[in-house]
């Protein structure tokens, strides 16, 4: 036991449950439930802000993020306000995910098994098992392969990480919880900032019971408002006459009603610092103790501005967001709003794949929110980018990150995903340089069996290493094979000078055959015309055949030729190109097998 003790700052104790202070600007942060998203936002979602999530098409990853946010709120004992129009808010709450390893908690703690399993983790386990079964030598080899084998000088660098791992869960707190199941209440300091969830399980009934939720069904609300047209209309009279596009008077102001409900919840729960439940009563003296017992109000709005949300004027949503922002800035609350952004904008904008293009309508909404991200899933994409990056489920675009109480957003300082400088090899000196607010890295997301993760997006090496090795010819062009080629090329020249027909595979093999044919030409110093045919047949072949051969597309052609000519400098003047191939066979074939 070392004599060093971890110093617990006193400020930490006074934080509300499940919160932490930002390392950069001292902002109180809450977790979105997804460690990688927390990282992008600069450690977490600052209290008092709005995060806008632009939903994906044909999939519901946007809603998944919303569920993470709400589920984390239930873990922390926060108040959750769920607003939904398309889907009943109750259904959303019921379908929340469970906590990873909630059932078999004790056994896992005893074993010390980390229960954040990914597919690759499993695979590794499996491989280890197989290796141990086959024998010690094999295992040795395997572990050797597991180690970095590119070059010895890279082994000193830290492991390349494309994602962000959650902090290991506080095992001790879990043991407590598991040991005394009769009292489920944890002390605020024991509640993890970000719990680990398991997408394969559902929220337990007990957690659902204890959850403090307020459900607002905007669809129901709309019906009610329509049925009993209320006094709201009278007060709105003046506004609708003030020049903005006034729609029919009997339309209910849905956004206003939703906002009123949210405000009421905030005030009744005592989350607001400016608006008091009972203005005449003396304000409660706020102290550290009171703060520790405080909870955060999490507002989750599902698919705002979908067709089921009727707006009275086009400005309703803007006003709603502006008012909500004003409300939240002075409250212990934060909001995550998903919006089907793909419903807005023109055709080409909707099909755009780069993050910069959104419709003006959505763009103005982003101005009124503190953070904005966009999910683009490959399943709903019009382009077939998915085939190129099968390891990911979609792209994750960060349009805006919160910048509060500072000149630059804290995520440029702290985020690993957005800007590698924060934690990378550059070190603290480098991190002073910061990054642009848009971030440098491209991000993609994966949904593994149990969790959602955002990672830096890389395309895999084209074709994959194994594929390349199998499709290309064995590179050992020994003299014997050369002679064989000579033979085959000899037959081909006699039979057919234009072999550009047939299937791809065949064309490829023809190409491979025809290329060395030039070698044959050179040695036999045949007539030049066939040599010419050979040269022309390469660009004449279909692109796929070229690809299969691994031939360089265009520019390298010249390099091949030049390589040949230099190699065969001692050869004849006329057959410069073909003659060079004899000497430059090594060069040529190595290019072919590339």
């Amino acid at each position: 036991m070392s004599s060093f003790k971890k110093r617990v700052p006193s400020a930490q104790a006074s934080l509300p449950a499940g919160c932490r202070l930002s390392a950069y600007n001292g902002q109180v942060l809450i977790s979105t439930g997804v460690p990688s998203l927390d990282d992008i936002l600069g450690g977490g979602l600052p209290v008092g802000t709005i995060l806008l999530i632009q939903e994906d098409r044909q999939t519901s990853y946007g809603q998944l993020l919303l569920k993470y946010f709400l589920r984390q709120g239930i873990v922390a004992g926060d108040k959750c306000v769920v607003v939904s129009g398309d889907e009943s808010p109750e259904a959303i709450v019921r379908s929340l995910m469970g906590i990873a390893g909630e059932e078999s908690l004790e056994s896992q703690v005893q074993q010390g098994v980390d229960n954040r399993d990914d597919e690759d983790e499993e695979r590794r386990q499996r491989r280890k098992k197989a290796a141990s079964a086959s024998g010690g030598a094999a295992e040795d080899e395997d572990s050797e392969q597991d180690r970095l084998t590119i070059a010895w000088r890279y082994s000193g660098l830290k492991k390349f990480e494309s994602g962000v791992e959650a902090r290991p869960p506080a095992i001790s707190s879990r043991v407590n919880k598991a040991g005394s199941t009769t009292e489920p209440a944890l002390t605020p300091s024991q509640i993890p900032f970000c719990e680990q969830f398991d997408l394969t399980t559902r929220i337990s009934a007990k957690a659902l019971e204890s959850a403090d939720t307020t459900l607002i069904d905007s669809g129901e609300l709309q019906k009610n408002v329509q049925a009993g047209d209320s006094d709201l209309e009278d007060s709105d009279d003046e506004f609708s006459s003030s020049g903005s596009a006034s729609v029919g008077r009997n339309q209910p102001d849905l956004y206003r009603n939703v906002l009123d409900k949210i405000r009421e919840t905030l005030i009744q729960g005592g989350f607001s610092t400016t608006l008091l439940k009972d203005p005449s009563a003396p304000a409660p003296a706020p102290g550290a103790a009171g703060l520790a017992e405080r909870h955060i109000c999490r507002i989750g709005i599902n698919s705002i501005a979908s067709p089921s949300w009727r707006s009275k004027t086009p400005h309703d949503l803007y006003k709603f967001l502006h008012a909500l922002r004003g409300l939240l800035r002075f409250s212990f609350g934060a909001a995550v709003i998903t919006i089907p952004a793909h419903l807005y904008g023109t055709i080409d904008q909707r099909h755009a794949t780069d993050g910069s293009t959104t419709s003006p309508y959505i763009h103005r909404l982003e101005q009124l929110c503190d953070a904005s991200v966009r999910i683009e899933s490959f399943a709903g994409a019009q382009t077939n980018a998915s085939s190129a990056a099968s390891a990911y489920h979609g792209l994750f675009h960060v349009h805006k990150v919160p910048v509060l109480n500072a000149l630059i957003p804290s995520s440029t300082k702290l985020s690993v995903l957005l800007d590698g400088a924060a934690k990378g090899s550059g070190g603290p000196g480098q991190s002073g340089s910061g990054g642009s607010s848009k971030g440098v890295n491209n991000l993609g997301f994966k949904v593994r069996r149990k969790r959602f993760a955002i990672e830096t997006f890389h395309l895999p090496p084209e074709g994959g290493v194994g594929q390349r090795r199998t499709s290309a010819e064995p590179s050992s062009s020994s003299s014997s094979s050369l002679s064989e080629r000579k033979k085959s090329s000899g037959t081909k020249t006699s039979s057919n000078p234009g072999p550009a027909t047939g299937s791809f595979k065949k064309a490829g093999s023809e190409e491979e055959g025809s290329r060395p044919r030039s070698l044959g030409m050179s040695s036999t110093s045949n007539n030049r015309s066939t040599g010419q045919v050979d040269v022309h047949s390469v660009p004449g072949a279909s692109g796929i055949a070229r690809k299969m051969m691994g031939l360089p597309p265009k520019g390298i052609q010249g390099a091949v030729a030049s390589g040949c000519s230099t190699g065969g400098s001692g050869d004849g003047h006329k057959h410069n190109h073909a003659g060079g191939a004899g000497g430059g066979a090594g060069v040529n074939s190595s290019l072919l097998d590339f």
Partner: protein
Amino acid sequence: MGYPSLESHLPSTHAPLLPPGTFLSISDTQASDGNFLLHHFISNYIKADQNVVLVGLAGILVHYTIVGRKLGVNLATARTKGIFQFVDGLTQLTDYAAPNKEYIAKPAELKLTSTTSTATPPTLTVGSTGVTRIARPAAAAAAPPAPPKVLSYSPKLVDLYRALEEIIQDTASKASGPSKKQLVLILDDLSVLLNCGWPCRDVLALVRYLKLLVAKFNGTLITLVHADGLMAEEVSQDGLVKGVFYEADYIIDVRGLDSGGSRDVHGQLSLLHGPGYLLRQRAGQVKENEWPALTLHYKILDNNVEVFAKGYSSGVL
């Protein structure tokens, strides 16, 4: 002093302040927030002991106070001294926020709640029945400064103008001592007004009125407006940007680099001449090279902003 590297590029006649009676319009894009320029002018004016009226339509007082601390100015004491006025245009601006009033605490109890957390220090609002009630800060006592004024909803922007007019007159009259002080009125984000449903025509009229009003008090108007190229498709948005530019003497256009993000260059500033400047130039009121139009690059640091000529970033040199 604000950002020293930017200062040398700004009009030099009244450095570090802007020439009185002028209008500086700042436009920005989402990728490159122009808010940092506002902090520059706020801190410059406060340090020069001049009057500042800041209308926070998007930001809150806490944000400006904390950033001001990083730049070396204390806005809290400036408020008690009466040279800094913050006007809250966020919480009660729209009609959606109207029912707030019944829950607002009475001013008598406000002082009790004035020390809470770091996240949301109580920037308390004062309810009023009319447009906006002016709450004078307690005279230089140790008492905490009075809560900021609130712009509350009104269907007509004229009422908003009246509220601001009252505040400015109040501020200017207080300051009229032996030395005539300059005044700067800063509007945090004009696009918010457009988003909240006021027509473009009215917002432009407000800007024009405010410009004339401020000029009367030996002051300068600074506004921020979002001018993403994407939004130029919208008629009202485009009209606002163009209209504001037309009123301006100086224009600073902040946008990201065309070539994309960079670690060492966060964006570019274009210092441009507005029509007002050209008019004055023709009238011979402008010194030579007072405001050279040029494009610079910038990089935002923790508590400073580096402005440098194109291609002269520390990453290159």
